[in-house]
């Protein structure tokens, strides 16, 4: 289940920011900001994806690097929100 969520998140980023299917292009722990994959507007689009496609509301105070700056961090954040719901 966790792997499926990671894959869904990674595929979204590969599709919309790197325009490739090659999973080797993005490590699950790669910093999206540090690697220059995502900028400020890109981060907003990721939040939109989390809310619209993963069904998890992102509060303003939850927009922090620990929750959003890598595939694994996004997956962990989404999973914990789903468990709490």
């Amino acid at each position: 289940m966790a792997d499926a969520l990671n894959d869904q998140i990674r595929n979204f980023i590969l599709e919309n920011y790197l325009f490739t299917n090659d999973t080797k292009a993005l490590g699950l722990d790669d910093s999206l900001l540090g690697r220059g994959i995502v900028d400020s507007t890109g981060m907003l689009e990721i939040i939109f994806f989390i809310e619209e496609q993963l069904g998890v509301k992102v509060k303003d105070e939850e927009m922090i690097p620990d929750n959003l700056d890598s595939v694994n961090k996004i997956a962990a954040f989404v999973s914990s929100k789903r468990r709490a719901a």
Partner: protein
Amino acid sequence: MHPSIVQHFEETAARSGAAVALHWRGTRWTYDDLSRAIAAAASGFRERAPERGGRVALLLRNSPQYVALYYGALTAGLVAVPLNAQERASVLIRQIEHCEARILAGSTDHPEWPALSQAAASAGCTVIAIAPRDDDSSLDQFVRDVGGQGTPFADRPKSDELASIIYTSGTTGRPKGVMLSHGNLAANSAAIIKYLALTPADRGLCVLPFHFSYGNSVLHTHLLAGAELVIEDNLAFPHLTVQRMQAEAITGFAGVPSTFALLLGRVNFKEHDLSKLRYLTQAGGGMAKPLIERLRAELPHVALFIMYGQTEATARLSYLPAEDLAEKLGSVGLPVDGIEIQVQLDGRPVKSGEIGEICARGASIMQGYWKDPAATREVLRDGWLRTGDLGHLDEDGYLFIDGRTVDMIKVGAFRVSPQEVEEVIAAVPGVEEVCAAAMPDELLGQAVKAVIVKRAGADVDERAVKAYCRQNLAAYKVPKLVEFVSVMPRTASGKIQRFKLA
């Protein structure tokens, strides 16, 4: 007036020694710390490039280390060439070759560093690798990295000497390096400090990149005023940025229109104590009146300065005094100290209210474009800088912008050359013809759109084009939309009508 920001900084540092100059992540450098770092960088550079005027290319994101390297280069009588930290190595290599850099100093954690440092070394550049620590070890690590032996030198920069080259968005084949003298930087910084009334009591927050002229001016003005500058380099988490404004008792913040759109869209200012915030500055393109009015409504106690300028004028040409904002909403204000502005048609000034090209002259106008006298003659004529912007002056002498005379696409804080995007896409197999144009974007102002005519029978799609662009262009230059057409709109003489594709 100081001949250079070097002398101005030294005078400020002598007064402000123990005060914090720069705050970045977990590290704070006082003015004394920064002076020590600058001296180390200056002697490190001078020992590797003893001839005055040698170019030092810098590849670092916003950080105290960047600042020390920049001032170190100027102190050593060399020329700082800050590279766009978002750009690809292939473009930066061309800029390093173009400016004939003697030294490349950069951050080992930059994604393009391995490719760039190797290419620079092959081209005969001396490479200095900086490990960008962000804790208590940052200063000592920096001094070790630059490796200067403390060589003393007596020559101080003169106002007409070249201090910096800033590359603006030109085509891939023709980078345009704006040459700024020590006098240019000193004059423009002094003018801005004056109208913002910056003092050592100020604490600015900078999210704008130092390697572009706006961020460059925010950096110099705060340092020269003896203020503290809190450094970030992105606005990816706007809530955290505003939290920081509260936590650090920030007194001033600089942004471009998309900065404020992002903040207003994602953060409720009323949930934060921003009572210490006294000024906001806005440049980097026209901000829509509704956005200005929202900002004033959210932060009524803060002085909002709408400003205008360009790299060719160091940074700032005009500013609208905050107290005039209500009456002159839509204007970019009055010339800054040391600058004269005229609106011209065919080289002659027009009457108030009439639209023409905005021209400027004065102490902060560039020396020209590096190794490009033809391009220089295009914009510096008869003693005036031709900005490429259309505008008019009202009867009180307040300047209003009416558009641009050239095709640049303004994506957030960045300017994108359509020609540069076209050159890249033209190399995609299956592309017969391509034209890049601006399309409106709610957040960024404009985004890049690429319109393509495919070769007969070619199998090329939007994703393939975007992937190729991603490999070869900075991320903000990648088209947001790719469309395919059977024929491009053209004039009678065969020229593509770019404006019809927007």
